[in-house]
């Protein structure tokens, strides 16, 4: 009963938070200067056309010539009726634009998340229980390098090395061509094919690298808190194996704070990392769509895409709160 009431309250809060976030985004977009109209007018003038007409056309095409409250009410209504309107930057319904994009992002973002969680947590835990060993130092070094390398630079270097140089390079007479991957993403390649898997290797690697590094650092730090805890020593005294101690006693408790961080990580990967990765690898996914929408002052699309991280954050927080009960028996919602 307590859990249901708690969940209901959280869902209600989620709705309010979503409305606040969307309204804030709308206001910020509305207040921000729109150089697009100026640029359109300038280009028209340079071609001997009417700059005033170009400017009016630009604003009218985006519905920006209407009063702010009309634009706002239109948007809020469309959110609740799921009629998300027309994307002027894509010249198609917003739902269609999203439908065409999300699949491309998921194809590399999900593997990147999986790799970063499995490898990051795995190495983090291992280095925690083997603190001050060579493996710990190597792990920490790799983590710092991963965090420090800018994604865009790493991506460009990977493309040059793997996409171009490996095509003709040989080492000890062995061709590196099999390690050569496409330089950019081709959305026309069928999803469940080896060719598609190969073209996803580089973007997945780039996206996972920084994420792996930070997961590794967090999990190592959390695990270190419990490695010498009383309940771990007790388990060890009772003869529990090293694996059991690590997975059942250390990792389970460490997962409580780690699951909190995980939501932030997912958002970072999906909506910050994906913009960089999709730009460099020419992936027509959500990150690129978002950037195109902002560049094109496509208010409708920007506002709808803004809903995604908001919903993910709110749902993620809800789920993680519920997961606490399972992960840590000391937490109970009965009194809340």
């Amino acid at each position: 009963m307590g859990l249901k009431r708690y969940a209901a309250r959280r869902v209600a809060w989620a709705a309010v938070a979503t409305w606040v976030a969307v309204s804030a985004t709308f206001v910020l977009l509305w207040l921000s200067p729109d150089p697009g109209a100026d640029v359109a007018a300038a280009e028209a003038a340079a071609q001997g056309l009417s700059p005033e007409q170009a400017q009016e056309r630009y604003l009218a095409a985006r519905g920006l010539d209407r009063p702010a409250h009309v634009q706002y009410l239109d948007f809020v209504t469309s959110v609740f009726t799921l009629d998300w309107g027309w994307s002027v930057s894509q010249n198609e319904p917003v739902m269609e634009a999203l439908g065409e994009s999300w699949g491309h992002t998921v194809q590399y973002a999900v593997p990147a998340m999986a790799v970063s969680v499995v490898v990051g947590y795995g190495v983090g835990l291992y280095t925690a229980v083997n603190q001050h060993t060579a493996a710990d130092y190597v792990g920490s070094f790799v983590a710092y390098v991963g965090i420090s390398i800018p994604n865009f630079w790493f991506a460009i270097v990977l493309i040059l090395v793997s996409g171009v140089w490996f095509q003709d390079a040989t080492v000890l007479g062995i061709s590196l061509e099999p390690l050569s991957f496409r330089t950019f993403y081709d959305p026309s390649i069928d999803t469940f094919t080896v060719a598609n898997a190969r073209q996803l290797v580089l973007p997945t690697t780039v996206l996972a690298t920084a994420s792996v590094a930070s997961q590794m650092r967090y999990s190592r730090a959390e695990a270190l808190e419990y490695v010498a805890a009383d309940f771990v020593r007790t388990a060890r005294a009772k003869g529990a194996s090293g694996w059991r101690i690590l997975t059942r006693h250390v990792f389970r408790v460490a997962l409580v704070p780690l699951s909190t961080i995980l939501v932030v990580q997912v958002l970072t990967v999906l909506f910050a990392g994906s913009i960089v990765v999709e730009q460099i690898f020419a992936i027509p996914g959500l990150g690129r769509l978002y950037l195109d929408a902002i560049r094109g002052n496509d208010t409708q699309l920007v506002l709808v895409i803004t809903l995604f991280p908001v919903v993910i954050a709110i749902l993620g927080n809800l789920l993680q709160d519920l997961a606490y009960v399972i992960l840590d028996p000391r937490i109970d919602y009965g009194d809340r």
Partner: protein
Amino acid sequence: MSRDTSPPAVSRRRLLAALAAGVSISVAGCGSDGNGTDTGGGSDDREFIHGTNTGGQDLNPLSIGDEATEARLNLLYDGGGVVDDDPVGFQGRWLRSWELSDDARTVSYEVRDGLEWGAGYGALDAETYVWNVRNVFRSGWASWAQSSFLSVGGDPIEYERTGELTFEAHLPQSRANFLHEDPLLYALPLPKEFVQSEIEPDAGTTPSTPYRQQVARHEDIRNANIVGNLGPFTLESYEAGSRMTVARNDDYYLADADDVDDGAFADSPALERYTYRVFDEQSTAYSAIRSGDITQTGVEARRKAEIAGEDDVTVWTSTYGDGINWISLNHRANGWAPIGDSREVRQGLAHALDTGTLIEEIFDGNANPIDTFHPRWGPYYSDEAIETFGADTELARQKIAAGTPDGYEYDDGALINPDGEQQTLRWVADTTTQTGDLVTNFVRQSLEEVGFDVETTGRPFGELVSTYLRNSVDNNPDFEGEPDYPPRGYNGGPADQSVSAEPWDLLYGVGFSTAAYAPWQAIRGVMTEKGSFNFLGYDAGEYDVAGTLDAAAGASTGEAATAELEELFGFLSRDLPVLWTHNNHRIEAFRRSVGGLPEVRSFFSDVDPRRLSFTRTDT
């Protein structure tokens, strides 16, 4: 106007006034098996991927207002005709013939027989053209971007149907060069039945969505169902910001036409599929051309040698770039006053810059120097009429000293102003590109050598336009009331009344189309006192720029137009409203397997997807 970075990928055989130098990476690629190597199939069955860093707008034929959209629509619709490159003249497309009368007042058109719209919209004939002019191009609902070209000297051109396939245009005044400004060569009419049945602009009710948007959003436009046999390709998919794929149109009318360029288009297009891909990151496109994942890419001037050095890449260069670049000078009240007041000071600044070194060092020699609002290869360029100002630091100092008012003097190489301080020049540039940074450093050093302190500011292109180019009397605290003439576009009023939001003296990052064969509109916009794009605040004084342009545009013979324009370009070279710098080459990199690249014979020599083919298997 656009950013000055690399040359545009625009069909120059068409007449749409192109912008100067939009960033563009045009990439045509071989098909790929997914691991970065070309498929080794037959010669013509591979996909041609054309990369660009600029996405198009919608596929509404009435929307063309930018190069990227024009290039995409050019794959679907031919338009009336193009300008041939050798000899320069009309080459038919939908229009079989184009003829200007001896008095340069009447144009006779003949529409090609057998042109059919898709989706059951019937034939494209003379009625289609005349009806579109009257009901679409000139209408308010369509907002056709080139509607102003349907007038000459402010008076409308009258169109009259004379037969099923023939019609005439009656010009209100003589236009010897009308071939180079005839909007019907590039205008893309809509099917009459489509407009009448699907859009109904005359229904009299206010639509919830503007008519122009109704066109753009209609299924037959979005999916290009109306193409019929009118274009070389049919649409497979279109995502405005990222890609467009088209497939060979087996019904293409030009494939059977033997009257165009000696049958050069027989069985065209040779390519089965053609794809535009948008690359936000130029280095990815360069890597892709090297690896064979793509086949064609536009190349920045300073990267030409590097890309050309690749084994499987060939570089096509046209020295007939249509974009000219300059360093803008602020003649308005918030600029350094001697710039606007003294031609001698402007000439001194020109002497301070070594444009030859700038072209060699920053553009790796892949640009032409310019001396006026016209390229050196242009039809109206005359060595005799043009005055040039070579790099000469001492002469620069002398002219600056002579042109500045009392109170200015040189002291130990520095120009000291009446306040006793070294004179500062405020330099603003679009530094979101590396080229902008390089030019900034070069110019700063040059100006410092002639005694100025230089304060540099970098801004994104959009901000450059809104903060420094746009001007208004509202920004001038020393002026109250209305400007002497109504604000238009980027000219908020006279130079002593209207100023930009932020002060500046020199600005780099905007380039302009020369429209070399019909330059009057571009020059009128920028170089006349009331021109809608005279953000400079330039006033030619006694010289009648507008009158000379009118005389040139309205000339009944080419010789008369040449005489007028040679005089004008000579004046602009001496008066230096801006510091002329360079005219980009157009550089495209292709995989070596691509055939059909044109020999560069004139400005109108251009890469045409209709003629491209794969000539051998890439390795």
